């Protein structure tokens, strides 16, 4: 409450300062000395899409929720492995598995999934939080802060401090049996394919 008061009054201060420009300062209190964050916005826009009503005999559209965590101080290339790992798992399974991944990024991924699960129940008409699966999970490159490193003979090198974004989409329902399309085939499917190939083969110089 007190902080809100502080924030408001600070805004007022800023307003007065910028009155010549005739614009309203509405960002957070501390952005006065911190650069405005430029987070990716496209992913969360999917949460605002409203689909047309369905008739009663239609298959109900599964609910989904998109969530992200931005500018994590971790390498995007290392994060990719963790993001891949949870794809196609149910939420509870993903959270459980991530608890055993001894990597820095696993904590961020787990937190994001947990937050998304809560959001789904709170805002997106999902009845049971556990009835969700990780439909999409991927990584983006965040802010890269450049540093300098000394070399011999007055030369210098560049040091890049990478940050990454993590994006996740949870969908309602049980997870599919195979997440990727090129999954290994079942024995009966293999047999079926083999038989088909055998029947289709062409015997050259035959009748």
């Amino acid at each position, binding site marked *: 409450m007190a902080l809100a008061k502080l924030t408001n009054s600070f805004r007022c201060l800023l307003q007065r300062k910028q009155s010549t420009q005739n614009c309203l300062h509405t960002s957070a209190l501390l952005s006065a000395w911190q650069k405005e964050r430029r987070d990716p916005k496209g992913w969360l826009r999917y949460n605002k899409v409203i689909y047309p009503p369905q008739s009663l005999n239609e298959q109900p559209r599964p*609910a989904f929720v998109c969530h992200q965590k931005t500018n994590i101080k971790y390498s995007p290339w290392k994060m990719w492995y963790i993001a891949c790992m949870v794809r196609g798992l149910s939420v509870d399974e993903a959270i459980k598995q991530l608890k055993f991944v001894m990597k820095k990024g696993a904590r961020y991924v787990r937190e994001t999934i947990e937050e998304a699960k809560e959001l789904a129940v709170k805002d997106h008409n999902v009845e049971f939080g556990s009835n969700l699966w990780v439909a999409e999970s991927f990584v983006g490159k*965040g802010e890269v802060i450049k540093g300098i490193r000394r070399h011999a003979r007055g030369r210098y090198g560049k040091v890049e401090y990478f940050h990454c974004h993590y994006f996740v989409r949870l969908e309602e329902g049980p997870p599919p049996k195979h997440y990727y399309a090129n999954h290994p085939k079942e024995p009966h499917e293999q047999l079926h394919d083999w038989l088909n190939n055998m029947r289709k083969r062409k015997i050259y110089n035959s009748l």
Partner: protein
Amino acid sequence: MAFRLAKHLNGISFKEISMGFLVCPANYINYQITRPHTKHWNPKWKRLRKMKVIKVELPDFENDPGKLSEEEVRSKMKEKGLLPPRPWVERPFNITCTGGIFEAYVPPEGDGKVSSITAQGAKQNVQFLEKKTKSMMAIRKVGSFDEDFNRSVFIEHAEDIYKKTHEFIALKDKYKIREYVTERAYPEVMHNLYNKTIIWKFIKNIERPRMVHARCTDIITKENVFAQITVRFHSQQILAVYDRFGRLMHGSDIIAKDVLEYMVFEKHLANEYGTWKIHAKIIPDWLPQKDPSPLTYKKPIETSVTVANEEKSTAESTETNISSPTLIEKPTNTSQTA
């Protein structure tokens, strides 16, 4: 390369190296296998190595600046040399509408069902007459401000407002809603509209809408008069609410339902440009309880409840203490099976 190796070996005596070859491999069991060192063995270069990299202060992306505690904000502002802001003492205040219903109409019990032939219905009619005088006075007062005020015209106008408001709610047009609804009712009207699709249709009036109650009051000064008129609507409507994914949440788009509503309309009479707007809805005490929601949800854990639980559990046994968090989840599970 060979030169560098020889230089490196200079530092270590030959004896040490030869010992390494002779020692039995079993002794190495206690050694931990580590990655090959890329740094000089002598720590005296550590400082110089450190100086190679110029430290950059990385921005703190993780901690949201909006979520800092008051003390942290203070220390940050002190660090940057900013003065503490002026305390916020003003309170937003609205003068275009009243904050509630004055002398609210009490709907007779069983309205919409009781006929005037029964004893209860007859009693209601008598009570209605008793209350009429005050309403008449109020209507006369409205007429003194608004010379064109006519009861039948007003009823038509109220019905129009009633329909328009619902249509704009369904369209979620917040700018138009503001024209038909007072500032007090606006948050109530907009509540839970987000992310939903609403289908609303007005089919017909079962009974003609009628004025049941009217009151006037002045606020602060004598001339600053507000008028409130309660109109009874008994109609047939269709309402269906769909969630973001188009799944039916409430109602039906086929079945029409009888709706009895007491809408309070308000007008700021002192304001030359004041208009009649929906101000509130009267919900009688005798209204039967609503059907429980078909959706189950987890009950939010309240702190006071948990404290009570802890006290109870400590008094009884440790076993209940362990099971207390699952107790809250139980209703969700049972309803899942049902």
